[in-house]
């Protein structure tokens, strides 16, 4: 399949400050691509360039093999982190207004159903709850039946239930074959929705791939956290990785059973012990550093 969006050697500077430093990526049709990174990593700048809002200092962005032109706006949908809509419009009014901007649009009734807006269709948009507002903004970004959808931190500030609900909507959109570029601060969200992710830091990609590949490249299959401080000698020659924090020891290992068998001392208390698989949160903190950025 041909690449939908291709980014080559992208660099963007604000004066002396290099916000994006020579990144390249290819977005395949139908995939959900996650752009992750700490605040100030250059995610927003990258996204604005991909959305066609910002001209990069260097490099090129090709949509279906061609530079971004007027047809691009007809074919993409964008949900910003926060958007203000003109006052005194109901949910239905907003959809109707945005539908008028496009040559062809998805039937409004269909969008209302898809994004579950039917109960609030006659409500003024500024009276909506956080989750309802995000669903409206999602519906607005789908109004032109886009091939490529940008979701910029779509669930920031939502309660857990609204977030789960929103994820379900995104999965349904994926099933329709739409390509999605998503930014988020929630690693769980990326794990749930993204086929591939890129982690950005200081303007560069420091990791890129499928979540499973990235995790197996960076971690042993299991993480065991133990109460108390242990060192390598306690486990003999077993291939493990240890880290210590606040009176606890974190052990990466191939198998929990092997670890327990290898224990030289009396086995540690089961109290306070946890066994889990590594997740993207672990990866994110490992790659971008645990220390607080100031």
């Amino acid at each position, binding site marked *: 399949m041909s690449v939908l969006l291709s980014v080559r050697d992208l660099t963007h500077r604000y004066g002396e400050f290099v916000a994006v430093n020579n990144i390249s990526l290819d977005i395949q049709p139908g995939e959900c691509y996650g752009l992750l990174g700490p605040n100030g990593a250059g995610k927003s700048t990258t996204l604005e360039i991909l959305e066609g809002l910002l001209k990069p200092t260097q490099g090129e962005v090709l949509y279906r093999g061609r530079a971004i032109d007027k047809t691009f706006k007809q074919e993409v949908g964008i949900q910003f982190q*926060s958007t203000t809509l003109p006052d005194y419009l109901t949910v239905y009014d907003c959809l109707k207004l945005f539908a008028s901007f*496009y040559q062809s649009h998805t039937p409004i009734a269909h969008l209302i159903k898809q994004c579950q807006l039917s109960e609030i269709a006659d409500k003024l948009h500024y009276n909506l709850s956080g989750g309802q507002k995000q669903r409206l903004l999602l519906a607005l970004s789908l109004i032109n039946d886009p091939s490529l959808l940008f979701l910029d931190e779509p669930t920031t500030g939502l309660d857990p239930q609204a977030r789960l609900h929103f994820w379900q909507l995104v999965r349904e959109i994926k099933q329709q074959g739409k390509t999605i570029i998503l930014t988020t601060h929630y690693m769980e969200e990326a794990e749930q929705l993204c086929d591939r992710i890129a982690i950005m830091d200081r303007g560069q990609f420091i990791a890129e791939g499928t979540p499973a590949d990235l995790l197996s490249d960076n971690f042993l299959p299991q993480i065991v956290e133990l109460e108390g401080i242990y060192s390598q000698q306690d486990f003999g020659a077993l291939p493990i990785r240890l880290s210590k924090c606040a009176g606890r020891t974190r052990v990466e290992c191939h198998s929990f059973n092997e670890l327990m068998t290898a224990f030289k001392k009396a086995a540690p208390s089961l109290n306070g012990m946890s066994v889990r698989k590594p997740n993207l949160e672990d990866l994110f903190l490992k790659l971008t550093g645990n220390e607080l950025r100031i």
Partner: protein
Amino acid sequence: MNALFALISARNLEFVRDKSALGWSLLFPIIIIVALVLVFDDDNPSLYQVGVYGEVHQLEQVKALKHIEIIYYEDLEQAKHKVSRHLIDGLLSGDSYWVNPDSAQGYILEQVISAKLPELKKRAISGKAVRHVEWLLPGIIGMNMMFSALYGVGYVVVRYRRTGVLKRLQVTPLAPWLFLASQLFSRLGATVLSAAIVFVVIALMFDIRPQGNVLLLVLNTLLGSAAMISIGLLVASRTRSDELCNGLLNVISWPMMFLSGIWFSLEGSKPWVRFFADCLPLTHMNDANRAVIIDGAGLLDIGDHLLFLVAIILICLGVASRSFRWD
């Protein structure tokens, strides 16, 4: 009590650190005062304006009076017309004088003339003397339209830009000129409709009957309003700052307040003031509306005014859509 002082201090910091707001609050009154002084730079502004045509016996006695300004006219009929339109308070020529019976200033002036120049004979001004309300009404409505047009679009567009409404519109295929046109037409409808209602109510209350074609009034009002909305859109085409927008709109609206013939006529003022006034769209709309209401002017008579308004619309909208910024 601490909270009170802390809040006062925080608000003061906010105000002082917002450079544009601070700048305007200082600069604006200075500009207004300097401008007013320049426009009316007589030590004692005249209370009465008297037109003079040809020879007038004992004119020196009138000139010796304080607070009376003498304006010379080349054309007697034109000067009489000015009296009937409240543009000047009275007219002297040969052995005659003219005042408008509907003018309070004219009445006082008449008392002065009969005391100082008793041999002058009173003459009736030919044609209908215009009541003051007929002269004032188009100006007041025009002023109202000006504020509604300038601030109505200026503030809204700047707020849309600041809060991100425009950013969301930017990523749709909507063209800037289409957005500007939508603001123009929606405001135009509101402004012209409300002006029409006010006009009808006042016209019924004071029994004002326009001499000319009402459709011509509508055309003129549409063009005048569109011209001022276009100026508002031009001002709001780039800035994100409410204060800057407010300041620029003040700079544009205040001269129109004073110089477009709303409150007083610019009869006898300096040529550069007249020239400046002629550059303001409200002057043209007011003049054209008065000509239609009072004199029954036709399309050709007010053609120049209409062309000027069309030019303002085209220039402002053209520049605004070229320089327009979504963010």
